[in-house]
């Protein structure tokens, strides 16, 4: 039993945090979101630090890591509200690694690891995260996985609630390269992997929301005293912190079970349980963080309104609480 990150995992998370603190402050993020919706310099840095290849096979330039290796990184992403599409790219790339032929892997994975290629993964053809940036799409259709070049797809790009780039996609006579038939299990595994990462990201966003709200309670004065001296508010922030701790526990469970489970059932149970708790916690923490900020919580100027948006999206990403309640009960 050990809940710590390994030295390498901690070093990586720390260096990502340092990079984001330096180059991804809230103002920079605003410019990125208000502009193209992503930054090629930031993406190149992610590749340079080794984030993109961290959970991809070593034979194609990656590091062969798993969800726990990315967990600290995702927490840092959540704290900073990073909009670059790491999860879509990594999940799609892992599908290519698992389902593709040697040739397909060689054609795609080194480029992904080096930051030259970005991918997206489509199950539902609406709201495909990261699709507008992707060079290729990994598409799951009728039990089979295909690789489709983005230029062969019709896209309706839009911004998700949290400013991330997404698109509705459609195919017409599009060239699709088969990766694998009967890919249900592989896709389920990849989606569980993505869900675990999203859980870790949500924990980071919740940590930010709790920290910034606590800071506000200590500095905002009304009636001549910091509002954090009021018990009604103290108890509410305590409950936020408890939610966040419970969520963190479940993110640990999801990430470690995704890496270490002996059965698909064990993995799925852990991931669904985690997503239920984290969806509930994300709702609770985000709503309270805005409420305790009063009017300022509503303001676009404050980062807390952006963590609210991110948490609202993450609570629903890869299945909301209702979906996972259903799935958990069926396992």
């Amino acid at each position, binding site marked *: 039993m050990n809940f710590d990150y390994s030295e390498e995992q901690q070093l990586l998370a720390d260096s990502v945090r340092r990079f984001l603190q330096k180059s991804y402050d809230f103002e920079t993020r605003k410019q990125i979101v208000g502009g193209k919706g992503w930054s090629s310099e930031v993406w190149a840095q992610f590749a340079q630090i080794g984030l993109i290849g961290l959970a991809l096979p070593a034979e194609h330039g990656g590091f062969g890591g798993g969800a726990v290796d990315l967990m600290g990184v995702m927490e840092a992403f959540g704290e900073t509200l990073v909009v670059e599409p790491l999860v879509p790219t990594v999940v799609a790339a892992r599908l290519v690694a698992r389902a593709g032929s040697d040739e397909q892997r060689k054609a795609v994975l080194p480029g992904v690891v080096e930051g030259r290629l970005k991918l997206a993964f489509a199950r539902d053809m609406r709201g495909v995260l990261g699709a507008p940036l992707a060079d290729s799409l990994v598409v799951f259709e009728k039990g089979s996985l295909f690789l489709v070049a983005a230029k062969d797809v019709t896209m309706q790009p839009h911004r998700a609630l949290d400013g991330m780039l997404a698109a509705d996609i459609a195919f017409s006579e599009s060239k699709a390269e088969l990766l694998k038939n009967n890919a249900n299990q592989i896709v389920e595994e990849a989606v569980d992997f993505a869900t675990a990462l999203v859980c870790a990201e949500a924990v980071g966003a919740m940590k930010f929301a709790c920290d910034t709200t606590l800071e506000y309670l200590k500095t905002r004065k009304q009636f001549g005293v910091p509002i954090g001296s009021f018990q009604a508010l103290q108890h509410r922030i305590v*409950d936020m912190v408890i939610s966040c701790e419970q969520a963190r526990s479940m993110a640990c469970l999801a990430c470690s079970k995704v890496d270490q489970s002996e059965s698909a059932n064990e993995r799925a149970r852990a991931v669904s349980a985690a997503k239920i708790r984290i969806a509930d916690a994300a709702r609770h923490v985000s709503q309270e963080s805005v409420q305790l900020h009063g009017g300022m919580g509503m303001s676009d100027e404050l980062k807390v309104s952006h963590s609210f948006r991110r948490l609202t999206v993450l609570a629903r990403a890869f299945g909301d609480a209702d979906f996972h309640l259903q799935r958990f009960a069926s396992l």
Partner: protein
Amino acid sequence: MDLNYSQDELAFRDEVRAWLQANLPADLKEKGERYEHYTKEDLLRWHRILASKGWVAPAWPKEWGGTGWNVVQRYIFEEELGYAGGPPLVPFGLSMCAPVLLRFGTEEQKKRFLPRIYNGDDFWCQGYSEPGAGSDLASLKTRAARKENHYVVNGQKIWTTLAHYADWIFCLVRTDPTLEKRQEGISFLLMDMKAPGITVRPLILMDGAHEVNEVFFDDVKVPAENLVHEEGKGWTVAKYLLGYERMNTGRIGESKRQLARLKEFSSSKANDARFRDRLTRLEVELMALEITNLRFLDRMRRTGQPPGADVSMLKIKGTEIQQALTELALDAADPHASDAFTDAVRRRYLSMRKTTIYAGSNEIQRNIIAKMTLGL
């Protein structure tokens, strides 16, 4: 990161589980499953079985009968003990009075009381709350006046759990009512429940059960040698006990057993999506609390730091889960049934409302977290 127990820890758990299964008397286990109340004899029987195995006070120093287990082993043991069912180990002697004596008691006090606590010879209760001193414990008024080599005690305690079984009571009393700082006039005193002038009066709670009492002190003579630590240092003693590392605050093992029971007798509702979702959310909350508990434990093991306000979090979540379990059980029960078991399930719902109130209400626990962890 590895959420699994080590091979050694798993072997330890299996050993504990097997022994508990083999040695918990069937009638006591069944009594628990029927949600019947345990008698004093029931409580002491299980206590003595564990004592004869050497497992009744794992946390004590070895010289007094402790097992020398590390924090993880102690947690595993407590969880298994809860999971096994059977009567609870009453904490007042084993994990409240004894740690205080071990920390602050004289050699004579340790020799006099600890072996008898260990063997179940003395049944202890706790005299803290008073009618005017609940959450605001430091406002307590029970007066102990020093007269030569003894104290004369007058006043009243309330909510005194199992005082009607007890041979001894440890009390917070006011030895100096003149001090401006209220905490400084409080002392920690041990009293023989058979002493003249002590009256125990039952308080029947809404489930109809007699667990708690009022205890009245009317010119009770207490030998001065029964004072623990120095006069006026009772608050220090009480605070030490609050921070004392208890492994079982979240009652994970007990709640796991209740969850399994609930799943059994709510099986007719397995296809009721509304009920099922509530049950799943509760199961997930319990999973999360177990991992949270293990995370705290892991941190404690590595840093050697006492758990501090982490315990408050476990208390809040643990008791919320315990209550939610009884509420779901109530909803799973046939509303028209009148058999003894269904009646016990209903009464249990009533009874467990106490958990978020006792041992520092959950509101007080939130105050502690706000102050200690968040610096508010």
